[in-house]
């Protein structure tokens, strides 16, 4: 199957797998159903991963093609995981808040799912680090790009905090009824994750832009 067709099939399937595993309301399929669902999701992600590896290997053997550097790979993987965590917060964050504004019983399950995503991210990065053992992971240009991206992330986070401060300072109290402890906790976490997403995205886009024009 051509690589572009494989991407066209596997990318929507991997998004669907993420949705089924993490976002759908908790439905009980029994252990065989749950195991089958988890196995299918991992298979789809593995096939997508191996297709990406094939593309990278093809580019490596061709001098006229620019390969994806470790720094760029790290950035795009960061984009995928931070976007997934942010999307998960956006879709299920409201379920973490109980009617009285405290922590809802579903909060621990939702928090556990976020924890799984972070663990999966760490595992992927560990595997990649082993593959990059004999290569230069980052040089002065990567560090320059990362410094620029950090500046963007710091700017984004500053705008977010300023917007919150202005909102709390100038909004009438009855407009701030939603701002209960758990809701505020989610909002602050989402802001922090969004700033990380911005940092990874700026890094990835800058590397891609350089590579595209090579």
């Amino acid at each position, binding site marked *: 199957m051509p690589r572009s067709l494989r991407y066209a099939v596997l990318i929507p399937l991997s998004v669907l797998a993420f949705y089924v595993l993490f976002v759908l309301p908790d439905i009980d399929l029994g252990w065989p159903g749950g195991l089958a669902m988890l196995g299918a999701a991992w298979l789809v992600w593995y096939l997508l991963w191996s297709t990406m590896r094939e593309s990278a290997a093809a580019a490596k053997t061709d001098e006229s093609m620019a390969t994806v550097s470790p*720094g760029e790979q790290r950035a795009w993987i960061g984009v995928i995981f931070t976007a997934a965590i942010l999307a998960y917060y956006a879709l299920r964050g409201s379920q973490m808040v109980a009617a009285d504004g405290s922590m809802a019983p579903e909060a621990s399950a939702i928090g556990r799912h976020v924890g799984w995503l972070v663990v999966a991210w760490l595992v992927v990065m560990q595997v990649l680090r082993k593959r990059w053992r004999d*290569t*230069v992971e*980052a*040089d*002065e*240009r990567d560090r320059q790009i990362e410094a620029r991206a950090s500046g963007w992330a710091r700017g984004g986070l500053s705008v977010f905090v300023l917007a919150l401060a202005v909102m709390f300072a100038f909004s009438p109290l009855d407009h701030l009824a939603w701002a209960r402890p758990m809701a505020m906790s989610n909002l602050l976490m989402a802001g922090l994750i969004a700033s990380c997403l911005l940092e990874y995205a700026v890094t990835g886009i800058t590397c891609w832009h*350089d590579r595209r024009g090579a």
Partner: protein
Amino acid sequence: MTGTPIDNLIRKLRFEHDEMTQQALADACGITRQTVIALEAGKYAPSLELAFRIARVFGVGVEDVFQWKR
């Protein structure tokens, strides 16, 4: 990265040195191949240290590799 005011002859020097690959030059200088690509495309101005390392790989002076655009 935007264009830089520094021109370079890295591509020419690579071919004069047994058609050295970008990866071989990158390995010799301790940088990634993507940085060699960005240098050759004129999208990145190297630090003084990297400029010296590249010149040393080719066995020439820094000004034989990098020139200020007039």
